[in-house]
């Protein structure tokens, strides 16, 4: 048995779905953020797998993954800043209670 592209892609899909479930079904804003990170990782796996199996000499997939990582780091920083800012103002990080703009 050899591990081919499909294996990695299926792994990526499952991981993405888990992240999706977490992002949709959770109260805690930090846990939602963590779920989003999992989704981004899943995407990275897919990108690199494509790169490895389809254009191994080109490395474009890896470069995309690299950018994704940089953006993920930025996203986390801003996300956590928002969470902490909300916590400071509303003393909660329950995403369902942060509904100021929901009418």
């Amino acid at each position, binding site marked *: 048995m050899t591990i081919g592209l499909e294996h990695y892609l299926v792994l990526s899909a499952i991981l993405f779905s888990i992240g999706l479930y977490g992002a949709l079904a959770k109260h805690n804003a930090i846990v939602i953020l963590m779920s989003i990170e999992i989704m981004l990782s899943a995407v990275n796996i897919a990108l690199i797998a494509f790169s490895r199996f389809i254009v191994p000499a080109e490395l474009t997939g890896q470069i995309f993954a690299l950018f994704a990582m940089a953006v993920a780091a930025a996203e986390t920083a801003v996300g956590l800043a928002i969470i902490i800012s909300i916590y*400071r103002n509303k003393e909660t990080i329950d995403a369902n209670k942060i509904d100021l703009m929901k009418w």
Partner: protein
Amino acid sequence: MALKTETFILNAGPQHPSTHGVFRMRLTLDGEVIQDVEPVFGYLHRGIEKLAEGLTYPQDIVFTDRLDYLASMTNNQAYVVAVEKLAGIQAPERAEYLRVIMAELMRISSHLMAVGFLLNDLGAFLTPLLYMYREREKILDLFDMVCGQRLTYNYMRIGGVSQDIPEEFIPALKKYIDSLPGFINEYEQLLATNEIVLIRTKNVGILTKESAINYSAAGPVLRGSGVKWDIRKADPYSVYERFKFEVPVGSVGDIYDRYRVRIEEMHQSIAIIRQAMEQLPQGEIQAKIPKVLRPPKGEAYGHIEGPKGELGFYLVSDGSTNPYRLHVRPPSLINLTALKELLVGVKIADAMAIFGSIDICVGEVDR
């Protein structure tokens, strides 16, 4: 980041490396910043003031050793000064000179410890403390030679001192006094210009002149805040009028000033010991006092400048052999009153340094 965070209570002590004994600070913290302090004492309370009422005047000297155990000689001296004032006894000159030599040696020893522990609290891994210990050991050797103990000397007596110094004392003392300034300068070099020490101590824990006076602070804490107040100059006791020495004062009142004042006082003490050694007269060491001392009815307050501040004994006599009331003016306890003002708003690390710079001895705080 100024976050909205919950405050929480941290018990620093009673067993904590930086509380110098069994002393507890209940710190209310917001992150690392101290919001409120409550010192909790009493873990070493032995009721010495009450015990003293059941003992005769000479027996109480033994208990003064156990107040500030880093400066037993000065405790002895303060007590005997008070009793002599109460009973109207004048100690012979030689005894007074010996007392001065011992008290100044004790001051050097206590200041060495204070500075060493302060630097230890600043985080220097034991090195300066052990250097200070080395110098202190030499002083303890001298005390050991004179009175046979290294910590609880029980050397001074009402109307004199217990024994005359042995003949090898003065040469050893001279040798020590000659070598000490070099060592102190070396320690100065080690730390006084050290950038880390400077940024940790300068402008940290400022006690202004006014609050220092208002808080009844005494000793290096008061002088570090710029108040030129030293009992040896303000109200000379013993033979201190005969010596030339300066009273070093600080300017800002921060940790660094208190540290400088202690270092300078060591140099001044060396000068005093030099003069005392030169002037040391021959003669009696013990005044004639009755076998059973019964001071007349009345009260007296005798005070001296201890290493940690004004150390006084307030005595009330009812004409019997035991003091009717003995009260210690404990500089450690009274200096601690300012702790709350100094600590609120600083970080834990600074709190420990400030606490170290006040230099308390729990034996004296709790009595």
